[in-house]
C-alpha cells in the first residue's frame, strides 16, 4: 500500500458493469466458499497498546469460554452440516490451534478442508509489529500449518483483522496467492503489491455470522434467510452478466453452531447446495481459476 497516502493504493478501480468477465467451471455462476474460523483466543494475552484483547480484567470468563465452545462442542456440529451438503471448508486458522487442540485441526484435514492463516492467536494483533515480527508470524504460520496438515498455506486473513502497511507486500513475497482482508468487491480482484502478485478473494463482513448475530442481532432463521438472499442475488447476477461472482460464508462455530441456530443454517446450506448454479469451491481453487484466466 501507499503508506501515508489518502488512497492506500490497494487496487485499481474496475466498475462492476465494465470489467473483464470471468467464467467459472461447468457454467456455474456463483462460486460459494465456506470459511470457518478455527480460532484460539488466549486467556491472558500480553497487552498490545493499539488494541485491548478483552473488555474485562483477565480472565474474561465469558469472552474466553464463549469462544472455547467451538473447540469442545460446536466445531463438529458446524463441520458435519457443511459435509452433509458437500461444502468443503477453507479455514481461517489461528495457527496455534494446531498446538492446543490438534483434534479440531485434524477433523478439518480429514474432511479435505483447505487452511489459511488467521495469525498465531486471535489475541495477538499485528498493529505495531516490526517487519521482523511480521515476518516471524508469517513464517510461523507457514511452518505450523505445513507440519499439522501437510498444506503450504496460500491465503491470509489478518489476526483479528489487524494489519500493518507492509502486510500485503510481505504476503506476496512469501508466495501467498490471496488475501481475505479487502471487502471492496463481489469478484476476485488484483491487489497491488510491491513485487509479485496477490489476489483479493471476497470474504464478507456483512454476511459474516459475527455481524449477523452480534452486530445486527439476527435470529438464526433471519441469518439463514440473509444467506439465501445473498446467494440468489449473486447467482442471478453471474448468470445474467456471464461473469462469475463469489459468495463467502464466514463462520464461527461458537456462533453458528449454537443449538438454536444450526438447524436454520443447515436449511440455508441445503438450499444453496441444491442450486445448479453453485460452484462449491475452496478459496484456493477460486483464486487459482481466476488467476489462470488473467
Amino acid at each position: 500500500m501507499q503508506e501515508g497516502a489518502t488512497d492506500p493504493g490497494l487496487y485499481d478501480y474496475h466498475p462492476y458493469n465494465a470489467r473483464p468477465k470471468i467464467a467459472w467451471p461447468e457454467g456455474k455462476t456463483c462460486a460459494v466458499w465456506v470459511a470457518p474460523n478455527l480460532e484460539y483466543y488466549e486467556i491472558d494475552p500480553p497487552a498490545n497498546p493499539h488494541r485491548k484483547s478483552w473488555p474485562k480484567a483477565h480472565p474474561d470468563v465469558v469472552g474466553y469460554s464463549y469462544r472455547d465452545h467451538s473447540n469442545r462442542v460446536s466445531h463438529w456440529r458446524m463441520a458435519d452440516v457443511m459435509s452433509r451438503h458437500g461444502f468443503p471448508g477453507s479455514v481461517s486458522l489461528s495457527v496455534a490451534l494446531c498446538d492446543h487442540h490438534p483434534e479440531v485441526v485434524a477433523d478439518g484435514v480429514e474432511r479435505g478442508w483447505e487452511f489459511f492463516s488467521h495469525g498465531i492467536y486471535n489475541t495477538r494483533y499485528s498493529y505495531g509489529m516490526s517487519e521482523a515480527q511480521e515476518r516471524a508470524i508469517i513464517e510461523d504460520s507457514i511452518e505450523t500449518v505445513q507440519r499439522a496438515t501437510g498444506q503450504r498455506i496460500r491465503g491470509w486473513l489478518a489476526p483479528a483483522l489487524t494489519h500493518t502497511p507492509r502486510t500485503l507486500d510481505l504476503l506476496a513475497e512469501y508466495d501467498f496467492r490471496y488475501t481475505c482482508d479487502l471487502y471492496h468487491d463481489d469478484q476476485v480482484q488484483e491487489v497491488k503489491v510491491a513485487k509479485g502478485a496477490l489476489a483479493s478473494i471476497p470474504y464478507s463482513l456483512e454476511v459474516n455470522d459475527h455481524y449477523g448475530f452480534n452486530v445486527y442481532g439476527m435470529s438464526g432463521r433471519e441469518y439463514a434467510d440473509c444467506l439465501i438472499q445473498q446467494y440468489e442475488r449473486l447467482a442471478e447476477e453471474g448468470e445474467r452478466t456471464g461473469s462469475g461472482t463469489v459468495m463467502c460464508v464466514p463462520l464461527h462455530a461458537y456462533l453458528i453452531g449454537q443449538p438454536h441456530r444450526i438447524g436454520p443454517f443447515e436449511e440455508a446450506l441445503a438450499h444453496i447446495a441444491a442450486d445448479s448454479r453453485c460452484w462449491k469451491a475452496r478459496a484456493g481453487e477460486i483464486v487459482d481459476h481466476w488467476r489462470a484466466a488473467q
Partner: protein
Amino acid sequence: MSLPDDYTTYPRRAEGYDHDYYDWSSMHGRAPVAWPDGKSVAVWLCVSLEWFPIMPEDKPFRAPGHMVTPYPDYRHYTVRDYGNRVGVFRMLEAFKAAGVKASFAVNAAVAERYAELIEAVLADGHEIIAHSTDMNGTITSDLAEADERALIADSLARLEAASGIKPKGWLSIARSQSWRTADILTEHGLKYTCDWVNDELPYRFKNGLVNLPLNTELSDRMIIATQQHSAEGWAQMMRDAFDWLAAEARGTAYTKGGGRMLPVHITPYIIGQPFRIRALEQLLTDLSGRADAWIAPGAEIVSAWEEQQ
C-alpha cells in the same frame, strides 16, 4: 507504537489449554450421559432474582441491566423491581401450571428484602443458587483478594440466613470471575458454578468444582433485551434448540449421542411482562409435554451427571 520483542513468543503454546482450570475434552468424545427415565434433553430453567441498588457501583464493573440515567434513575430501578414484585409471580404460576421445577439464582439482598418471594420459591420446590450480594457485587481480577473473599462469604452467609438454604450452586453477576473465584467457591463447599459457557454438559474443574454451563446466547436478556427479538421469537429459538439437541442425542455422524442439555436463562423483569409471559407459558406447556424432555433444576442435573462419572 512498537511492540516488545517477546510479543511473538508464546509461553503457553502447547497441547491443551493456556490455563490450568480444567482439561480439554470434546463433548462428543466423552462417554454418553443418560438422564433419568431415558429422557434425552435436560431442560434447565434458571431464573435470576436481582436487586439493583439505585446507587450503581462501577468497581470492578457495572452489572448488565444496572442504572443508566443520572441519579436518581427511577426508570431502571423500578422496572427491575417490577420483576421481583410482579413478573416473577407470573413465572412461578407458569412453572406450577406446567409442573416443572427451576433454579433461582438469588442475590442475598433479594432474599433479605423480599422474604415472601423466597418463601414462594421454596414452597414450590425450586432450587436456590447463590448469586452474589446484590447487583453491585461484581467480580473480576481487579477486585482485591480480600474484597472478593468477603463478597462471596457475605453472599453465602446472608443468603443462608435469610432463606435457610445452603446453596450448592453459584452464578456470578454477568458470569464474571477472577483468577481466584473457582478456588474460593470450592473452599466454601459449593458444588457447582454456572459461569463458563464453553460446553453444553457439566464438566469438572481440576479443583473439584463442577461447571454447569448457563449459555449466554439462550438467555432472554441476550435475545429479547439485547438483540431485540419478541418473546415469541425467543420461544421459537428455544424450540429450534430443543429440536436440534434431541436429534443430536439420538446420535449423528459426529456423536454417538447421549443426554444433552438446554439451559433457559430467564429474567422476571424481561419475560415476566404481561405481553411476554404467554410465550413462556406456551413454551413450558410444549416442552413439558415432550417425551424426550427432562425439566430439572441445576443441582439435579449436576447430580445425575456426577453419578455417571
